Structure formats: structure tokens, C-alpha cells
């Protein structure tokens, strides 16, 4: 097998709560600093300590860093999962394990190269404190990996110095542990392995960031001042980040007081209630949650829709239904969010695909919420939100001014003979609102009960319907304002492929691979709902399209079928919903499976076809 430089995948199997995360992150960050395109996926359990957890690193010089399913190197640090982990190594691949104890011979695979490093033994010899011995084992295997993968030792060393700048003792033990592993590997193995790293310069304009951090930063830049939330995985770190950024950027220089407030609510019903109350009162307010929270917010989301109150809701999707798998990723809340609440309701959705878009879409969400006086959902997922992604440096345009939508100032109200809350509407079917406390003439009565365009209570059918019809038109109008889809046309393309959110990288990689195999397809990544013309146009221009999404029920496809004029026979689903991030392989297999059946793929609508066959690892 000839050498492969900067093009391989490794997987590390650990026990959670043993500190492996920092060692794995260290490695991934080092590769990033070496200027090489890289991704890291943390596959962790819903538990604090003691259960299996995995970390995957994919290195790819051409930038294909979606999750890869064939592993060149497995680092097996969890005896509970040895068997499973060893099975996953590709033929001819390598396995690094702790040889302090002999490996059960039954586990040995002839077609895999086993690299034993006596990690525990070495650490026990050179460290006293039991907790330290456990932690240092991780740094030690990191050291060995540096050797076998030819990572840059200076970069890693530098990272350790930065990380433990303040903690001398810790810094030194880390260096020592790193060396232990490194030296042992150099001494006992032919370093580097045939697949390894070499310096590149692909990351000079890039950063390493997770979506929750980026979205929180976006909320800070959007000028959000009120945040209300209830802790829930995987959204919690978004609010943690918002707090951290506010402490840094939102202390009033003179008084040292806070230009923000973060309220940990008693539950999600309260969280959305606080957002609604604060937005009603003129602040930019948001909440962050996950599926179960959205379910609980259903009633009040209908109130915000009907009473026309802005609200920004971040839904970091996890695997449902019910509690489901809280630490696994899915795109299963699309329909729930699009039509949240009883009665006729439609909401605005944004679908960022990576942390950079999380940052970019956050201010957009507030602008839309205030421009259209309605709830706006930022739908990310655990993969985007909690994993570190390599993305272009975030940019900020200092000329940005928040779009507060139609809000009348005290003076403007003063000029009116009479202020009417829902009348007259503008070309987007939005009426001007006033902010409480601004002007006596601006006072109005907000209600979730039947009201007419003046805001007055009504039970008269025509008056009720007049408002509801305007709301429908208002929602349609917002299509022009949501982020347009990303479209990539490929010459010779005979069909289209549609996807959203975190599927982006995997799908684009798959289309490149398929193209090489002579199957050319156009690409569209949808970034917002309601759907605007470009989406409709793409649908019209293709005889058929695959819709690739991470849920069982083809929710994006359903939304396209209901909310565009596309004949549904044109849309074929590829559904991957096991809870781990999408890989190009899923897409390629899915497309080939469908194509395989003849010239044009046979198109079984979901309702008839039911869930697709196994497409997950």
C-alpha cells in the first residue's frame, strides 16, 4: 500500500469522564494548526461517567472532512468495546491499544496491524496520584499518535503550554506523558505509518469552532439582551457560551453592570414565555432548546404567531421522539417547528449547515423575527452545535444595523390620529407596532383570543378571517427574506440532489465521487423556510431530485411537497437517522441503490415506500 499523506480517518474508543476528550481535542487542534483540513466528531453517551464514548478524526487534504466510515487507525482504550472497535478497522488498518494487559487472543484480527503501547504501566511508573495516572494515559496515547502519524511535536507542545500556561505542575506532567507515548512509539514502531500527516497551509484563514459557540456569538452581535432558557442537551453549551461572551463584552464600562440578562427558567414553557414578554416589550430576546423543549413551547408559539410577537428559538436537534438519544444527532424537528401549535400556524425556519452559518444566521433570525413580528427558528443539530468544525474566519460588517421592523417611535405615534395595532399592513403584510412605555397614544391590548385588524376583541368570522389571511400572506412574504439556497450546477447533470443543514459536506463529497463514476447531479442546499423562488426554480428544472435528510419520515420532503408546487413524484428520499453524523457513503449507497433499479431511479414516494432500508453504520 503506497503512502497516503493527509488523507485518512482514525477513531478513538474511550470511557467517558476519564479526560480523553481533551487529549483527542488536542490532537485534532494540532492537525488544524498543521494547516491540514480536518474534522473531529465526538460520539458520546448520555451519561456523566463510565460509559463508552468515541471520537473520530478525519484528515483530508482536498477538504472532504465529512464523517468517514472506514477507519485506518483505531485507538482502543475501552475494554468494554474492544470487540466492536476492532471489528470496525478497515482491512489492513491499524489498532493502537494499551498493552499493559495482554489482549484476548480471540480479538486478534489477522488483517489488522496491532500496535501495543503499555500506557497504564508507563503512567503508573511515572505518576503517583491515581486520578493523574488515568488522565495522563490519554496524553500518552496522544504522544504515540503524534509519532505514528507524524504530527508536529512542537505544535503540540505549544498547545500544551498555552493550555496550561497558568498551571506549571500540570503542564509538566502533560509534557512528560506526551513524551512517554511518543518515545515508546518511535522506539517500537516503524514511524510514521503509511498514512500520515504533513504540513499544509489550508487553514491560515480558518478557525476551529463549534456551532453552539458560534450561534451564541451571533446572538451577542445581533444585540440580544434577554435570554431565557432551560438546560437541555445539546443546546446547553450555547447558553453557556452566550454567558461567557456577555461577561466579556456586555459589562457596562462605566458602571460594570450588565447590558444583558440570562434567566434560567423553571421549564421551557416559561423560557418561551419570557422571550415573548421581553420581545413584546422591545428587547431582542431568544431561547435555546432541543426537541422536547419545542414540544413544550407549542402553545405559546401559537400565541406569538397569532398576536404577532417576535421570538427567536434555537433548536439544537437531537434524536427523537421523546427523550430519545440526547447525545446523538438528527434533523427530526423540521415539521414540528414549521407548523408548531394547534390551529393554522406557519413559522419561519433557518437551517445553518455549520458554525460559520450559525454565526451568520443568528442576527438574520432576529431581523426576520422583528421584521415579520413572529417566531423564527434556528434549526441546528448536535453535530453542528457540539463538534468543532474548521470554518472560514467569521466576518462582521460594522455597518450592520438591526432591522427592528416596523416599530413606531413615540413621536411617530404622536402624529397619528389613532394607533391601530394590526392596521395598516405594509407590502409584506406587516403592521407597525409600538413599544410599551413609549407613548400614551401607543398603548394597545395584546391578546391570543380572536381579534380584528384594529387589535380589538372579535368573534365575527370576517374580522377573524381577515387577520388570519393576512398572517398567511405575511408568512409567504418572508420567503424573499430568508437565506436563499446554495445551488451548484454540474454539467451533464441529469437530476438534482437536495439537502439541508449539517448534511452539506457529506452530500457534496458524495456528488463529487458520483461524478467521477459518471453520475452527475446538481446540488441544492436549502437554508430557509418558507421556500423562495430559487428553490421552486431548482425543483422545476429537474425531472427528479433526491432529498437527503437525517430523519425517518422525510420531513423536508414533506415540507417541499406541501409548500411548493413541485409534483411530489419528483422527490425521492434518502434518509439516514441512526444518530451519527452523515457520511458520503450513506449518500452514494442511497443514490446508487435507487439508480441501480434501472435507467431513471424508480421513485417510490415515502408514504408508499415507508422507511428506507438500513443506511447507517
Amino acid at each position, binding site marked *: 500500500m503506497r503512502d497516503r499523506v493527509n488523507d485518512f480517518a482514525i477513531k478513538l474508543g474511550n470511557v467517558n469522564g476519564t479526560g480523553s476528550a481533551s487529549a483527542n481535542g488536542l490532537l485534532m487542534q494540532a492537525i488544524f494548526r498543521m494547516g491540514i483540513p480536518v474534522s473531529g466528531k465526538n460520539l458520546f453517551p448520555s451519561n456523566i461517567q463510565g460509559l463508552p464514548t468515541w471520537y473520530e478524526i478525519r484528515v483530508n487534504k482536498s477538504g472532504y472532512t465529512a464523517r468517514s466510515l472506514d477507519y485506518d487507525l483505531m485507538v482502543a482504550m475501552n475494554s468494554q468495546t474492544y470487540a466492536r472497535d476492532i471489528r470496525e478497522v478497515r482491512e489492513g488498518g491499524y489498532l493502537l491499544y494499551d498493552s499493559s494487559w495482554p489482549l484476548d487472543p480471540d480479538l486478534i484480527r489477522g488483517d489488522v496491524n496491532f500496535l501495543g503501547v503499555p500506557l497504564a504501566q508507563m503512567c503508573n511508573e511515572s505518576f503517583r496520584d491515581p486520578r493523574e495516572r488515568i488522565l495522563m494515559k490519554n496524553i500518552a496515547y496522544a504522544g504515540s499518535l503524534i509519532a505514528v502519524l507524524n504530527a508536529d511535536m512542537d505544535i503540540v507542545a505549544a498547545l500544551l503550554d498555552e493550555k496550561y500556561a497558568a498551571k506549571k505542575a500540570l503542564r509538566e506532567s502533560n509534557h512528560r506523558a506526551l513524551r512517554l507515548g511518543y518515545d515508546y512509539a518511535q522506539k517500537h514502531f516503524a514511524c510514521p505509518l503509511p498514512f500520515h500527516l504533513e504540513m499544509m497551509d489550508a*487553514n491560515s484563514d480558518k*478557525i*476551529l*469552532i463549534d456551532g453552539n459557540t458560534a450561534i451564541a*456569538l451571533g446572538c*451577542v*452581535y445581533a*444585540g440580544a*439582551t*434577554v435570554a*431565557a432558557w432551560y438546560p437541555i442537551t445539546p443546546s446547553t453549551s450555547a447558553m453557556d457560551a452566550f454567558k461567557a461572551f456577555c461577561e466579556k*463584552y*456586555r459589562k457596562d464600562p462605566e*458602571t460594570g453592570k450588565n*447590558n*444583558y*440578562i*440570562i*434567566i434560567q*427558567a423553571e421549564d421551557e*414553557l*416559561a*423560557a*418561551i*414565555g*419570557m422571550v*415573548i*414578554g*421581553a*420581545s*413584546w*416589550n*422591545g*428587547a431582542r*430576546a431568544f431561547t435555546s432548546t432541543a426537541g422536547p423543549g419545542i414540544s413544550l413551547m407549542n*402553545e*405559546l408559539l401559537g*400565541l406569538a404567531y397569532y398576536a404577532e410577537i417576535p421570538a427567536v428559538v434555537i433548536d439544537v436537534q437531537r434524536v427523537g421522539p421523546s427523550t430519545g438519544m440526547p447525545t446523538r444527532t438528527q434533523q427530526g424537528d423540521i415539521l414540528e417547528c414549521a407548523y408548531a401549535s394547534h390551529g393554522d400556524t406557519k413559522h419561519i425556519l433557518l437551517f445553518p449547515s455549520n458554525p460559520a452559518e450559525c454565526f451568520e444566521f443568528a442576527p438574520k433570525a432576529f431581523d426576520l423575527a422583528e421584521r415579520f413580528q413572529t417566531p423564527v427558528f434556528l434549526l441546528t443539530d448536535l453535530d453542528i452545535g457540539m463538534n468543532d468544525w474548521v470554518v472560514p*474566519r*467569521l*466576518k*462582521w*460588517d*460594522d455597518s*450592520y*444595523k*438591526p432591522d427592528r421592523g416596523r416599530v413606531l417611535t413615540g413621536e411617530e405615534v404622536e402624529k397619528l390620529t389613532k394607533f391601530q395595532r394590526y392596521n395598516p399592513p405594509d407590502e409584506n403584510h406587516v403592521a407597525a407596532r409600538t*413599544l*410599551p*412605555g*413609549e*407613548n*400614551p397614544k401607543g*398603548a*394597545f*391590548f*395584546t*391578546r*391570543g383570543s380572536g381579534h380584528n385588524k384594529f387589535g380589538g*376583541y372579535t368573534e365575527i368570522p370576517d374580522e377573524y378571517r381577515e387577520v388570519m389571511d393576512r398572517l398567511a400572506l405575511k408568512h409567504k412574504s418572508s420567503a424573499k427574506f430568508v437565506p436563499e439556497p446554495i445551488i451548484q450546477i454540474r454539467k451533464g447533470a441529469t437530476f438534482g440532489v437536495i439537502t439541508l443543514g449539517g448534511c452539506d459536506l457529506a452530500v457534496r463529497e458524495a456528488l463529487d465521487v458520483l461524478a467521477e463514476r459518471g453520475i452527475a447531479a446538481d446540488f441544492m442546499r436549502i437554508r430557509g423556510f418558507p421556500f423562495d423562488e430559487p428553490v421552486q426554480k431548482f425543483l422545476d428544472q429537474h425531472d427528479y431530485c433526491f432529498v437527503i435528510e437525517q430523519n425517518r419520515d422525510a420531513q423536508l420532503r414533506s415540507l417541499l411537497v406541501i409548500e411548493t408546487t413541485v409534483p411530489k413524484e419528483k422527490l425521492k428520499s434518502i434518509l439516514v437517522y441512526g444518530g451519527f453524523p452523515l457520511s458520503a457513503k450513506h449518500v452514494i449507497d442511497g443514490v446508487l441503490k435507487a439508480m441501480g433499479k434501472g435507467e431513471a431511479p424508480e421513485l417510490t414516494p415515502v408514504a408508499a415506500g415507508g422507511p428506507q432500508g438500513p443506511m447507517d453504520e
Partner: protein
Amino acid sequence: MPSINKPIATHPSLQRNALGLTIRDYEGSMSTLCAGCGHDSITAAIVRAFWEQSTPPHMIGKLSGIGCSSKTPAYFVNGAHGFNSAHGRMPPIATGANAANREMMYVGISGDGDSLSIGLGHMCHAIRRNLRLVYIIENNGVYGLTKGQFSASADVGSKSKKGEPNRMAPIDPVMLGLSIGATFIARSFSGDKEQLVPILKAAVAHHGFALIDVISPCVTFNDHNGSTKSYLYTRQHELKIFEADFVPPSSEVLAHIGQNGAVNVQMHDGSVVRFKGVPENYDPTDRQKVVSYLDEHQVKGEVVTGLLFLDENVPDLHEMNQTVDTPLARVPYQKLCPGSAALDALQEDFR
């Protein structure tokens, strides 16, 4: 909730408050509640209290949940900003409103169903946050709007119109509030405007969450005999422990403990609540004393009313969160956005 516009025929002779406004300026639309509903009397007291306090109407946020009681914000201070929200959810919505604009004065109107059943958790947590909110429970022991089912405040043995007795222990908002640290607790009776108005004024001045439980009989579904929330029963069992006057900031301040059962409590804004005829073993600023006094009398079936407990020294929502004095809704964007330079600097940490 429905409301019919009232002819605004202002009588010249009407008195004017500090803002030059007549009481008419604090009225709302015509009530659509049943004739004789206790809630309407509370509405009248609210109108009077705000007028006497000379609160600028548009600086008032009046919020409510759902229920006959929750309809009442439409019936007072038309010039205020109203929000008739969803059943049981007024506390969080008021919390958000207060968080966004600390300068306004908020009054939340709820019912015993709205607050003690579907909204119980929200009310308790709003109490913990001690936001400045005058929180009024118009307590009639039933769900009026849905036609008379028992609410959680119905006493054991109290009979429904059909004659069925309630069997479950009631939730008494006063005892509940005392057990979770409420900082202003009062109970009154919709029939007693003299008592209610000063309580409301003190509540408006209070530095935090003011919980006011007002027995407010439902003439249509819970005013029969056998009911412990009827006008008759309440009149027969009410025990007014003492009077509380509200003395606005201007007037001179008196010693903390005055003679013969007079207790004066200084409010944050300099105003004073003057308690008269406070019993020996009672101190409206001592939670423990209040609890045991109430325990003692309520077992006898007495309905103790008055401004029962008051603590001005607990930080409110904004103090707990050290927010700026300017309402967050009004902080200029420039103060909120760190700008591109900061972003570039920050991103060095993301490498």
C-alpha cells in the same frame, strides 16, 4: 376577552391627581363579567389605587392569563399596555417584560385556577425571582369561565353548586408564598375597597414581587351556601388583623416601632406603610411570627386579611442579575455589539 367601549363623558367636577388626570383616565372598557362578580370590585380598586398613586397610564404593563379574572385588564386603565396571554403563563411573560424594561410598573391579574393549577410552578418561580410585579389572584375557589369546577383553592368540605364537597387540601397562596420566600404577601376581600386600595398602593411601591390574594366571589357558580368563598361566608369569617395605611414619600417618616401596636415600614421609594393595631405576638416583617399567627387562626376557619407580610430588603430580579439601570430594551445597539475588531481579536482563541 370581549369588551364594550364605554362612553367617555368626563364630568368637569372630577378630581385630578398629580398628573392632572381624573379617575376616568384610569378606567377601562365596560366589563362584560356577570353582574355582581367580585372581580369587578377589584377592578374598581385598581383604578382607584393607580389614580391615587398618579402612575402614568402608559408606564403600566397589565398582564393576565386566561379566565374571567384574566379578562379584567381590559376593564381598567385603557391607556396602559395590556397583554391577555395564555392560561397559567402570565408569570413568565411578565418576567420577560420586566427583564426588558425595568422602568415600567407591572400588574399581573390571575385567577385561582390560572395561578394555583396550570400556572402554579410559574407563579412560585416568579416569586423566587422577586421581580417587581403586583400579582393579584382574584380568588373565587372555582373555574368561573369554564362554568364552576373546583379550583385548588377550594377548602375541604366546601360544596359545589350541585352540592358535592371538595375533598382535597387547598393550596393557600399566602401560606405557599410564606414557605417559598415571597417578599410581600397580602390577603383581602373584593368587597372591602377600603382595605384593598392601600394594599395595592403599597404593592406598587414594593421593591419586588407583591402577592395579593383577593377573595372574589363568583356570583354565578360559587356564591351559594355551603361554599366557603361566598360573600356571606367571607363576611362572616373575615378577620382583619390590623389596618395598613400607605404614606407617600413626601410625608415625614416615623420611627420603626410606634406605640400601641403601630408598626411603620419604610419602602424603597421613601414611602411608608403604617400598620395600626398590630397584635402583641405579630410582626409583619417577621416571617416566622406571621406563619404561626396565620396557622393558629386559619385552623379556626378564620380568613385573615390585611397586608400580612413585607420585606423590602431582598434584591429584585434586576439586582440579582446586576443589570444596567437603562431598560435593556433601550440600550443603544452600539453598546451591545462588540464590533469587527473585537471579533478578529477573539478568533485568535479559535485556532
